[in-house]
């Protein structure tokens, strides 16, 4: 029974597929998988938007949306209807084709990322040997769509937003990749389901998640920072800083195209949070051995939602960074830390089991962190910025 519940989606798919002729079954199964992903994540997006607005409201001692439906739960429906019925305004001077393609490229690239994420036991669309690489390749393609959106709008705010977004995404892609490399090194595979399998073991009822190792913890923190920057989330949301450049690269988008950008942004957050959960939090594996009977997909989506709550919490707390602070933080703190973390992960592997590796690894990480933190805090100059070209 419990095994059936765990595999309920797979069984449902197989049951549906068996009505088709044998030649079509493989294709139909794939199509059903894709439909499931395309149905689930936008729904999750609707839930998360209302959760975010209510959560942020509570953090600011407000109610948040509470008008549409009970407790405002139908707010996303109202928003969706609004987005669908709004006029789609394209600027006169805009590059129409590129302007039209940009949101499509973004949404397609973002959804592709889910194809390699294992969302439960046996629940992975394409278990590729180079799954992680595929994920990052798709993530890199979103940069181009952001640029396309900003450039084709013929609006200086859009272009500025696109420049900022691309610069930021390129800078933070490096730490994102390098922090996940530590997990890849330990698991010895780029396949995400293999990485989950490596973490799905238990000692004394506790899981072997990478987050419980020194390098895993540091890796998760660094990964989260880079992921927040990669998805343009607050405090790294200056590509769409409303107070300076209206809405950044999607200033000139309205109606459903704007909704697509919004969807792309949130779905990108889900995929990157899912990747973080897969790499460091054991993916779909249960947090305690005695909880193994709970269906695996519940754990995956639970971890996803916890990550979303963390994103929302941070958005409710942190002010937006300035461009130079952002770049300095990436190149002078996050990237060196990820390099140190890679070294620590290697040390962890080669010292071998025992208490020595715990002491050594924690000592190195904390020592480097404190030292670099001191340097950053001492060197912080709050004076006016110097401009090279803008004078």
């Amino acid at each position: 029974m419990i095994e059936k519940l765990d595999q309920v989606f797979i069984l449902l798919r197989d049951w549906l597929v068996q009505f088709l002729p044998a030649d079509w079954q493989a294709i139909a199964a794939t199509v059903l998988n894709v439909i499931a992903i395309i149905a689930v994540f936008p729904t999750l997006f609707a839930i998360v938007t209302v959760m975010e607005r209510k959560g942020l409201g509570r953090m600011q001692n407000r109610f948040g949306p509470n008008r549409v439906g009970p407790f405002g739960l139908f707010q996303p429906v109202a928003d969706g209807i609004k987005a669908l019925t709004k006029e789609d305004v394209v600027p006169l001077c805009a590059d129409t084709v590129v302007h039209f393609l940009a949101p499509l490229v973004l949404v397609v690239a973002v959804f592709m990322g889910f194809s390699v994420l294992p969302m439960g036991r046996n629940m992975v669309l394409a278990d590729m040997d180079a799954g992680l690489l595929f994920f990052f390749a798709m993530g890199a393609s979103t940069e181009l769509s952001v640029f396309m959106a900003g450039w084709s709008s013929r609006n200086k705010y859009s272009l500025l937003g696109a420049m900022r977004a691309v610069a930021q995404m390129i800078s933070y892609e490096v730490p994102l990749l390098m922090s996940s490399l530590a997990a890849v090194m330990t698991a010895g595979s780029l396949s995400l389901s293999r990485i989950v399998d490596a973490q799905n073991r238990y000692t004394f009822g506790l899981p072997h998640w990478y987050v419980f190792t020194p390098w895993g913890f540091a890796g998760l923190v660094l990964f989260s920072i880079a992921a927040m920057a990669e998805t343009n989330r607050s405090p790294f949301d200056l590509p769409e800083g409303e107070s300076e450049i209206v809405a950044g690269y999607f200033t000139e988008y309205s109606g459903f195209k704007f909704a697509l950008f919004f969807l792309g942004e949130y779905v990108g957050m889900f995929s990157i949070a899912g990747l973080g959960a897969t790499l460091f939090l054991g993916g779909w594996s249960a947090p305690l051995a005695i909880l193994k009977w709970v269906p695996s997909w519940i754990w995956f989506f639970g971890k996803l939602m916890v990550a979303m709550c963390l994103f929302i919490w941070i958005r409710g707390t942190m002010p937006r960074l300035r461009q130079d602070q952002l770049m300095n933080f990436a190149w002078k703190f996050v990237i060196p830390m990820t390099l140190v973390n890679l070294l620590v992960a290697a040390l962890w592997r080669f010292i071998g089991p025992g208490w020595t590796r715990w002491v050594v690894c924690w000592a190195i990480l904390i020592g480097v962190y404190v030292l670099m933190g001191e340097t950053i805090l001492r060197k912080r100059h709050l004076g006016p910025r110097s401009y090279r070209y803008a004078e």
Partner: protein
Amino acid sequence: MTPVFCIVALFTLAGGLAAVTLKNTVHCALALTVALAGLALFFLRLDAQFVGFAQILIYIGAVAILVVFAILLTRSSEPEASGGIVSSRWLAGVIIAAAVFAVLGWAILRSAPALAHESAAPAVTVHQIGTALMGRYVLPLEIVALLLTSALIGAVIVAMHENGSAK
């Protein structure tokens, strides 16, 4: 010559042609991206996952962005009104293109006998690539890494303040 191959080939060729014939340089860059994506699909069709994804990650994620940034920062994106897309020295271009094509064709025709005996393509996993890079080819890898690092440092020096008050 499967249908998929034909579609991907058309896609790639159309991207490449658009990249040289379009007037707007940013459009050219975007068309080039399409051609690069087509090449990545070819790699994937040959079961070379690692190369295919690396092609997307590096060429679409980084090189294409670099190209469009270079275009934006160095010149106006407005199409130039004067003259057609054909340069005045088109003859030289044709000769060079023909020469390159001839060399490539010659190389392919020469190696044709090697392809004649059809053996199953070896399944190369990412693991094997990693082992090879870290084992047999570690010296070239390190040299490339050194080259890239020095290029990076050079870029930083070029971008640094002239008066030496680097941030």
